[in-house]
């Protein structure tokens, strides 16, 4: 803990503070645009971080995530359209408050609750990440392989309605990860004699394509592109009074508690957390009847929850190298292009970057209060822009940014190709995150599997004899079985209800 404090003291005179502020500002603007999720907002920023110091880059990206979670609530309150999925629950009471002429109050509650949730999430992140990664020095290739399998096992819970399609997407990701030079023999695989493919396909390219390009393609097919929201520029953020502050303390606590659990659990995410928080806040409220009709508690709970998740979702990513959400996956991509491998060894080799990230998130949460208050006018202007112009500029940013990563037009083409793949996946209702997980973990799984077998002369019992590997594989099995049971239960439930009604 002391080293975090020392880092924080030194941090105040480094470029990390402006990075945290800039990330939050970018995140709020991106989150405020309906259709642009936090992960896309982060992905658009990744190419700019390429030439930066790794510590500054990860703070910039993580701060963007924090800002985007608040930004999503701005259109949710002002135009009844959530800027992010996680802000969908905020629409229910936030938009009602706006219709009652209380938009300023709703925005203030959202901002303040996001700050409270973010701070609680940060405490959980700092105290939970380190113990999880304390096994760092004991990890063998067998254990790393098992860790990769544990990561892949969460595909079951990321697959949404169709487990089968989720697993197929995961296998596709593993196939993509096999492109490039073989990790043991050095033979080129699936490179089609292209030198650009020798090092494999960088996960960040896959993410830029699957998130940013796919969203552009998707948006271009939606009607109402010319429509722009008409908003008054007089809207301001008004922080809650003392009486209101006391009233929303309980829903904030509920939201933060749920956000903590949902964030740490792989595959849950901010959307589920915010709806659960809304529901529980209503259950425990003394003014239940106000929910759905402009209740401040109905804004406080989901906003506290999704900002808590913005921090706690980083626990499995930082400690085990397992991205449990789209945004965590993009942040992982940001780590990787700077040569930082999240997971157990991050605490050994790059403790300074990690402590800087914790301190950066602290500043980002405070910055959210300041920037969120000041940025309202540009946000209103941005939300009111016609979509064709916004899309054109985002497209220009994508092609310029991807080229900037390795100054290669081939990679721009790859990102476009993955955009087309992502669009096809959406068309066939195939979840995207399992594919990303496969790409991120594929190399780790294969290289360590084969190294472990080389070290044990081909004996597969090495994965059982190694205690860490054994327990990680056991956890993976429990996770898969648990998810399967949930899926089967979910699949049977409607038919049972149908039986009862017929």
């Amino acid at each position, binding site marked *: 803990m002391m080293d975090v404090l020392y880092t924080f003291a030194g941090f105040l005179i480094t470029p990390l503070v402006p990075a945290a502020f800039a990330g939050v500002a970018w995140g709020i603007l991106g989150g405020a645009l309906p259709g642009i999720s936090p992960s896309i907002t982060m992905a658009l920023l990744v190419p700019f971080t390429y030439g930066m110091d790794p510590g500054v880059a990860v703070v910039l990206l993580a701060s963007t995530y924090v800002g985007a979670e608040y930004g999503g609530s701005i259109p949710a309150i002002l135009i009844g359209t959530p800027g992010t999925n996680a802000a969908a629950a905020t629409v229910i009471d936030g938009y009602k408050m706006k219709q009652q002429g209380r938009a300023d109050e709703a925005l203030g509650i959202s901002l303040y609750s996001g700050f409270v949730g973010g701070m609680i999430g940060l405490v959980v992140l700092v105290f939970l990440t380190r113990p999880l990664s304390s096994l760092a020095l004991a990890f063998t290739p067998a254990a790393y392989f098992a860790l990769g399998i544990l990561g892949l096992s969460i595909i079951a819970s990321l697959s949404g309605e169709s487990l089968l399609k989720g697993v197929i997407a995961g*296998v596709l990701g593993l196939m993509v990860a096999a492109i490039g030079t073989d990790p*043991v023999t050095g033979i080129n695989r699936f490179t089609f004699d292209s030198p650009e493919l020798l090092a494999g396909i960088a996960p960040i390219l896959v993410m830029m394509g699957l998130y940013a390009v796919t969203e552009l393609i998707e948006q*271009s*097919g939606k009607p109402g592109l010319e429509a722009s929201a008409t908003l008054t520029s007089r809207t301001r953020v008004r922080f809650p009074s003392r009486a209101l502050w006391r009233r929303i303390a309980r829903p904030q606590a509920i939201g933060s508690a749920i956000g903590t659990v949902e964030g740490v659990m792989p595959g849950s995410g901010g959307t589920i957390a915010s709806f659960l928080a809304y529901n529980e806040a209503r259950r425990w409220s003394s003014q239940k009847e106000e929910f759905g009709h402009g209740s401040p508690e109905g804004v406080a709970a989901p906003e506290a929850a999704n900002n808590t998740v913005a921090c706690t979702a980083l626990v499995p990513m930082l400690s085990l190298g397992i991205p449990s959400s789209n945004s965590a996956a993009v942040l992982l991509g940001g780590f990787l292009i700077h040569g930082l491998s999240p997971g157990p060894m991050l605490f050994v080799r790059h403790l300074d970057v990690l402590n800087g990230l914790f301190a950066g998130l602290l500043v980002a949460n405070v910055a959210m209060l300041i920037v969120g208050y000041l940025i309202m006018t540009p946000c209103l202007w941005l939300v009111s822009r016609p979509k064709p112009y916004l899309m*054109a500029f985002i497209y*220009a940013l994508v092609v310029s940014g991807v080229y*900037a990563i390795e100054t290669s037009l081939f990679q721009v083409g790859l990102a476009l190709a993955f955009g087309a793949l992502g669009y096809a996946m959406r068309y066939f209702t195939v979840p995207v995150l399992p594919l990303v997980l496969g790409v991120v973990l594929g190399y780790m799984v294969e290289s360590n599997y084969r190294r472990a077998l080389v070290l044990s002369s081909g004996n597969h019992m090495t994965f059982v004899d190694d205690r860490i590997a054994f327990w990680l594989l056991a956890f993976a099995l429990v996770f898969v079985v648990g998810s399967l049971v949930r899926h089967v239960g979910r699949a049977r439930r409607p038919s049972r209800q149908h039986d009862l009604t017929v």
Partner: protein
Amino acid sequence: MSRDFVFGCAMLALSGGYYLMAASLPQSLLDDAIGPQGLPKAYAYVLATLSLIQIIRSLPRRSPGAAASGLRGNHLHAWWRPLGILLIGVGYLTVVPWLGYTLSLAGLIFATIRYQRGEGVWRAGVVATTGAVFFWLLFVRLLGIPQPAGLWPSLF
């Protein structure tokens, strides 16, 4: 044809192609017990199995009503229309080695605005030119990231 059926068939074809490519990988004296072909072949087997399950599961759903959610009629229009935006990107990639970054980017911005039915050719042109210059200043001048220069340096 239901979407799930088409998806299953596409994945089955992909698994076949991937397997053939994996099987044609050269052997090496340095090969370990698994070899460079090992896991790719396993992935192809798994994908083929899952694809077959997907195809089988989609078969009972094939009914007259299912055609409505299939690949015909308006839905065909619905899925190809957005791909125009992708073609604009392909066009950008084609011309940028010759026209250079700023001009090609202006073309990309202009084409995207017009494709999305953005108002007025002149206004779109002004926005595209301003945008391209802005991005050139940002990437090339401010961040120092070289973007494709095109044929212009060789002409002057």
